[in-house]
Each structure stands twice: as structure tokens, then as C-alpha cells.
């Protein structure tokens, strides 16, 4: 899956800088994420992996530098336009799942379809189809606060995939999961994104997760180094 040219990048950033108060987190960072590839951003805890992921996903605006998705400049888009872009093209999975605790698993997965105005029955049948694909149909009617960590992440992945995004961003997906659960979830996720041609970008400190990806990018002192395919940098 390795590519040799920046032209294949669906998402890329150049000269990215981000600080929280006086603490610099990203320093003049440049990175490219290839279309259809599974990429892991690794590095020390507190090294800025989540911040980079949020900048690339258009959740955070960088202090300086550029972020481009499919020829669209995320760094200059206003908040509403970035939100629309995320809704249309991106799927996000958070460390704790961050599901709506008051709703069932099926309702959580259906929400991203219901917000833009999709009909209820269609949204729910699609949500259940995704839950089945992620081996989580048995918990469709359980409220989010009744789910185990493993089930929560499966539902969160289904919620991210239900809108057929081009890029999935997963932040610390394996946190709190045992080795067997990580293997099971990643195997399923990778099979799905490969069949759909979706790009996957995840952050992790866990070498078990990195082993499943096509490329590992290491974030060190706010800058990127890479293993695997080094050609783009």
C-alpha cells in the first residue's frame, strides 16, 4: 500500500504549529496521509498525537501552517464550513467512545444520519446493519452507559462509518481494551476500510495496533519522523 508521491495524499499538513498557552505541542510539522492507507501516529504520551489528529480532522485550528483535505484548505475554512466538511467526509472515534449516554447503541449510530434529516426507519436500519458488521448487533438496544468498553468502541466505530466517510480518525482506539479485543476490533476495522477504500489515521502508544497499519509515523518533540515509507517526507 505504500505510495511514493505526495500527489497520492488525501490529507496533508505543512508547517503546522500549535501551542497551548506557552507550551508548544506541534513545531513546524509536515505530514501526508495517503488515500486508502492505514496510518498510525505513535509517540510518547503527552507528545501531541491527539492534537495533531484534531488539527488534521479540522476540529482544532492550528496556530500557523496549512492543512489540506482533497484540495480544500481546512486551515482557512470558517467553523461552520469545517463542521459540514467533517460531517460529510470524516468519521471520528474517540478514546472513551464518547457516545451519548442517554441513547441506545442503535440510536447513537443513527444520530449522524438523523441530524442532516435522514428518515428514521432508513437511519435505524442502516445503523443496525453497521452494528451487525461490527459484531455488536446484540447490544443495539442497550443504552450507551450499559455497554462494555469493547462494545462501546465497536458502536463508536459504527457511528464513524455510518456516513460513509473518506477518512476515519481514531484517537487511542485501544485504550482500556485487552489484547484479544484489540485484535478483534482492528481486524474488523481494517477489513471494512480496505473493502470500502477508506483512509484510516489513528493515534496509539500500543505496538499491537501499529502492527495492523501500513505505515507508522512517529511524533517526537512536536515534529514527525517516519518508519516504513519515508519517501514523502
Amino acid at each position, binding site marked *: 500500500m505504500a505510495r511514493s508521491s505526495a500527489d497520492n495524499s488525501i490529507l496533508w499538513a505543512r508547517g503546522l504549529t500549535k501551542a497551548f498557552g506557552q507550551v508548544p505541542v506541534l513545531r513546524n510539522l509536515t505530514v501526508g496521509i495517503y488515500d486508502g492507507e492505514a496510518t498510525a501516529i505513535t509517540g510518547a504520551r503527552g507528545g501531541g498525537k491527539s492534537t495533531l489528529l484534531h488539527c488534521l480532522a479540522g476540529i482544532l485550528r492550528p496556530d500557523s501552517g496549512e492543512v489540506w483535505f482533497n484540495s480544500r484548505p481546512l486551515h482557512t475554512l470558517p467553523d461552520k464550513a469545517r463542521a459540514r466538511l467533517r*460531517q460529510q467526509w470524516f468519521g471520528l472515534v474517540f478514546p472513551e467512545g464518547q457516545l451519548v449516554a*442517554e441513547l441506545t447503541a442503535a440510536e447513537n449510530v443513527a444520530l449522524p444520519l438523523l*441530524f442532516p434529516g435522514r428518515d428514521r426507519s432508513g437511519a435505524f436500519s442502516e445503523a443496525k446493519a453497521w452494528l451487525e458488521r461490527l459484531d455488536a448487533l446484540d447490544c443495539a438496544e442497550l*443504552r*450507551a452507559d450499559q*455497554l462494555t468498553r469493547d*462494545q462501546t468502541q465497536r458502536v463508536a466505530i459504527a457511528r*464513524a462509518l455510518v456516513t460513509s466517510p473518506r477518512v476515519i480518525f481514531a484517537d487511542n482506539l485501544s*485504550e482500556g481494551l485487552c489484547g484479544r479485543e484489540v485484535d478483534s476490533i482492528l481486524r474488523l476495522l481494517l477489513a471494512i476500510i480496505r473493502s470500502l477504500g477508506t483512509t484510516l489515521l489513528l493515534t496509539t502508544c500500543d505496538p499491537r495496533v501499529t502492527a495492523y497499519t501500513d505505515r507508522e509515523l512517529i511524533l517526537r518533540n512536536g515534529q514527525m519522523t517516519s518508519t516504513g515509507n519515508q519517501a514523502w517526507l
Partner: protein
Amino acid sequence: MGAITDQSWSLRGRPWGLGLLVAGVAVELATLASWRATGNGSIIPVQIVGYLVTLTGWIGWISWLLERTGKLIRGRRRRAAALMAAGRLEAHSRQLGQALAPIAIMAMLTGTGTALRVLSAGAYLPRGVLALLASAAIVAIIGTLAALLHTTSRILRVSQGSLAALHALGNPVKPLAHAILASNALATVVLATTGGMIGVLAALPLIPIGSLRPAPFAADASGLAPARGVLFGVATSFAFAVILTTAVTAASLLLMPTLRRAADSAVLRAPRNPGFE
């Protein structure tokens, strides 16, 4: 696939508040019966107990009623904001009801004991019993406030992350705010309506009817006693309605900064790792 992570949330709500509500009103009526039979006596301490039990019963009953309302709406609504509003109403009402259950049991026991004592010996209560009742009332009020604060803070903490995640997924803030406001508005309407009705019911013993005039109004020669009694009833109902609608509005206002912070990526991180990742 493993254990349920938070069992207290999974317990179904029960209409225990209705029993307490009946007990509270029974205290009021028992006071009135004793009063009319003996013609004198200080009713205020017993009335306070009656109000406390009625208030607790009302909160418990209303939490069940709101939970059922939320469930009903949730099964029928098509829009995402309505679904979220109904889900919030159902889950939060259940949580608040469950948090108040232990205090309600204590209030119910105290109320029933007082009602029996009043029925057997009139409205006069020994000082020791009154002191005990006052202590129980203070403990119940402090316990109620602590339970409400704890549950509300827990709800806010959970809501912060999920709302921020929905915004991060590209959903605009407006429908999310509508969901919060809709659930709180519905809760406020139900609270104000039932609170007003129960307030009037609880104040009935103080409203002069015909020749039966409770002590505070019996010596009134101006002829304004019935009007004062009605005024008292309305004021009581108003106080009942205001207490929880204020709480609901406060909770709603507390969530608004959360929505404004929805774009703050720190909320999206795992609570176990609050530092930058």
C-alpha cells in the same frame, strides 16, 4: 461481552413518589382532622413535616412521570434533536429519582410516624419529638441537595464529552442546544403544572371552608380570611413550582458553556489522561 459498567443507570424508575405524595397529603389532612376535633393546637411543625414529605414525594413521582414521557416521545420522534431531548429527559429523570430514593424513604417514615402521632394525640407534640423532626428535616434537605448536586455534576460530566463528540462529528451546535432546551422546557412545564396542583392540594387544610376556620384565620373579623387562605394556597403552590423549575433552569444554563466549549478538543480526550496526547 463482559459486565455492565454502570448498573445504577440501568435500574428502571418506579412510581415510589406517588406513595410518598399520598403520605404527605395524609399528614396535612390528619393535622386538619385533629385540629377540627380539638379546636386548638400548634400545627406549624407538623405542617412543615407534611410539606417536606409532599415535596419529596412530588419529586419522586415527577421523575417517574418525566421518565415515562421521555420514553413515549423517544419511540415516536423522527428528528435527531427530539430523540436526544427525549433520551435526556428519560435518563436524567430516572437518575435524579434514584438519587433521591433513600431520602424519600426516610421522609416517608418520618411523615407516617408524625401522622400517626397526630391522629392518636392531637396536633400537640412533645419538644423532644419536635426537635427530632426538625433534625430529620434538616438532614433530609441537606441530603436532597447533596444528591441533586452529585447527580447533576455527573450528568454534566458525561454530557460534556458526548456533546463535544457530536460537534466534532460535524453536527452543528444549534440542534444540540435545541435538544437540551426542549428537554428542560418540557420538564419545566410538567413541574410547574403538577407543582401548582399539588401545592394547592397541600395547602387545602389552611384554606377556611364555611365555619371551619383554621387557627391562623379563625379570629379574623375583617372577612378576608378565605382570601388569605386561598392566597396562602397559591403562594405555596408557586413555591413548589419554583423550587424545581429553578433547578432545571440552572442545570440547563450549566450545560450552555459546555456547548460553547464543544470545539475544544480537550473535552474529547480520555478523562483518565487529561494531559495533552
